[in-house]
């Protein structure tokens, strides 16, 4: 396999990892006012993502860094082109991170309300905007002969992109609910469990419409297979939820997100940012790439350290595998 292809695959994997992992972080953040009726419940909910959310966010940082290193043209065009949406995402991520980390440092009611608002807004914004941004990348945007994005802000908000935003919003809500059902006990567990189909069924409809549209736009047999598998995974997750199998329900929603993202990247390849003005102006894994030498070094580093990272990150999930209930927190109120 060409090294440029290897790095396309690695960046796709980083994005898939990011969307699957931060997907439930965003979901929990958005469900905070829905499921968190009282302070102990909200605290229990946030405790489910507390130890891991920051590590999950690093997947995005590394995806950004890897894009810079392996495909500088892609990094430059994407980030300068999607300027305002990216700015909005950054503001949201900042506010969310501070909300999560600072929330339990003080216990007065006004402070907690502000933090909860920050977490809600900071989770909802990226949940929508990542869908918008990724859809635009795959669908193509106006890129000129110099590889510059020339579309302007409003060109990023076309119907397909907005639908993409709704799909990620719905997927993350469903995923967050299935994650909470898996990770909690007691009342919040039951209510999260009931939310899974409530969000999951409309999302399934939207996602199927979206993926079908994608297929008619630029689909391949492989992307179609991924799309069908994504829809099947979502439906399987919903069925497992109905049967009370929390682990399988969560696996289903995780695979739904991962496979849908995979469908996007399969559709994209070998472009990295197609131009809607002229196909010759599209950025591809070839014309956007770094030198083979740089890619070789990066490949060696990634081959050595990725397994190590995966091992300790998985271990951290194992350490915090226990379900959390409000009662635990009341026994040790702020452990």
């Amino acid at each position, binding site marked *: 396999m060409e090294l440029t292809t290897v790095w396309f695959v690695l960046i796709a994997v980083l994005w898939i990892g990011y969307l699957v992992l931060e997907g439930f972080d965003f979901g929990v953040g958005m469900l905070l006012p829905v499921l968190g009726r009282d302070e102990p419940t909200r605290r229990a909910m946030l405790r489910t993502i*507390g*130890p*891991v959310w*920051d*590590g999950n*966010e*690093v997947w*995005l*940082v*590394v995806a*950004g*860094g*890897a894009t*810079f*290193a*392996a495909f*500088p*043209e892609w*990094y*430059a*065009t*994407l*980030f*300068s082109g999607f*300027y*305002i949406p*990216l*700015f909005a995402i*950054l*503001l949201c*991520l*900042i*506010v969310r*991170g*501070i909300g999560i*980390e*600072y*929330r*339990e*440092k*003080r*216990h007065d009611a006004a402070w907690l309300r502000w933090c909860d608002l920050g977490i809600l807004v900071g989770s909802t914004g990226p949940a929508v905007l990542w869908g918008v941004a990724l859809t635009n990348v795959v669908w193509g945007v106006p890129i000129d002969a*110099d590889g*510059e*994005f*020339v579309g302007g802000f409003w060109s990023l908000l076309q119907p397909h992109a907005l639908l993409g935003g709704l799909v990620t919003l719905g997927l993350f809500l469903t995923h967050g609910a299935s994650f909470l059902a898996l990770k909690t006990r007691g009342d919040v567990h039951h209510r999260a469990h009931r939310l899974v189909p409530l969000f999951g069924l409309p999302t399934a409809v939207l996602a199927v419409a979206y993926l079908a549209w994608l297929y008619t736009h630029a689909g391949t047999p492989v992307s179609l297979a991924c799309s069908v598998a994504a829809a099947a995974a979502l439906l399987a997750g919903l069925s497992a939820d109905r049967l009370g199998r929390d682990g399988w329900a969560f696996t289903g929603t995780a695979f739904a997100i991962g496979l849908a993202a995979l469908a996007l990247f399969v559709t994209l390849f070998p472009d990295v940012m197609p131009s809607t003005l002229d196909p010759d102006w599209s950025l591809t894994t070839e014309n956007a790439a*770094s*030198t083979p*030498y*740089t890619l070789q*070094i990066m490949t060696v580093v990634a081959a050595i350290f*990725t397994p190590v*990272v995966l091992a*300790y*990150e998985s271990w*951290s999930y194992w*350490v*915090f595998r226990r379900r959390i209930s409000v009662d635990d927190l009341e026994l040790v109120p*702020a*452990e």
Partner: protein
Amino acid sequence: MLATLLDVDVLDIARWQFGITTVYHFLFVPLTIGLSVLVAGLQTAWYRTGHERWLRLTKFFGTLFLINFAMGIVTGLVQEFQFGMNWSDYSRFVGDIFGAPLAIEGLLAFFLESTFLGIWIFGWDRLPKRLHLLSIWLVAIGTWLSAYFILAANSWMQNPVGFSYSEELGRAELDDFMAVLTNEVVLVTFPHTIAASMMTGGAFVAGIALWHLMRRPDKDADAFRSALRLGAVTVLVSGVAVIATGDVQGKVMTDVQPMKMAAAEALYETEQPASFSILTIGSLDGSQEIWALKVPKLLSYLATGSVDGEVRGINPLQEEYEQEYGGGSWTPNIPITYWTFRLMMGLGFVAMAVGAWMLWATRRGRAPTSRWLLAAGVLMPLMPLLANSMGWIFTEMGRQPWIVFGLMPTAAGVSPGTTALEVGTTVVGFTLLYGALAVVEVWLLLRTIDGGLPLLAGGDGPDGPDGPDVTDDEKPLSYAY
């Protein structure tokens, strides 16, 4: 008309944005680096001695560490993306070289820091003590690794090595990655930055401990005395390291960026030997002086290692660069380089003096009493913090007008497609948000400092009976997160 006016300004606004977001981010980073080691050290002391005093100090400074760390994380996100957002032509030009250390930093350092920090925060009673201790040390190691790779990237901008220029693609391409990682600039900048970070952490611990010791002498005095001495010794030892590494750095800088050294000193004409001016009263850029305090031959020594060495001045260097790169100014903003260089060193020296004073005032079990010491101690955490900013501003402004020294002017790196309105929007947005967060962070730090050492769950404090206010329901549990 408005558009033309605004177009002209994209570069300036983008530079302000980078300056604001980066200097702000760099307030938290050195403190994170220094404090992670000190908190790990405190926890190690507890692990080895079993003294609850160390555990309570670990939790107290650990909470402050986390408040600071959170700010570092969220402002660091902006760093990863703003090269592409505002400096897309720079990113295209250097991505083949500059991107790799950034990506490797993420893979090696950020995953390590974030994962093990989560384990450390929530793993207190879920992990064996040894493993839990290991997790904070891994966080500390992660911060050091992160510093190395990002400084390697920055050092390449100061002194590009291990690359060749591709005519065909119009970009710099990597030839030798080891040369980038062992750039003589990063080899001195890394220890200098780490030593300054340790100084920042030490001053933070010492200043807070002194305040508690003097304002609340009846509460946990033994613990805060230990913390104060630990912090003050850290400031002194790392201060010496800062000076030693800074000295080598000056010589490397004279070698690879002579203009920066001349600008640091506002030395207009070549001198041999060259004196070092401690202060100049006159024009801001030091070109005309009314009165100056000078140390003969010191600049020669700092720059070349010999008291009679020749130090080249700004004017001859400007002429030389005109020959090489064409007309235009190749001189940085002298008032900024001159004064940031002095403030950096001056603040560092003052912090060391306060550290020495603290040790003297607490020698052989004495209790510090001087009100002046209290005032100096309260200001002490700010000194290395500001010195770091000054050093950072100096090294970046001293490189101007280059974004990559000798290769790419800053003006050529800015994103061609962004408008002044867009960049203006984001600079205002980030500045307002950062300002609000600064208020929140300082408030939270002060509240936490004011709360004092947390009690351990299920027992009285080991350092004697505590005041009545400990029944405050959040107190014993203040290490919630």
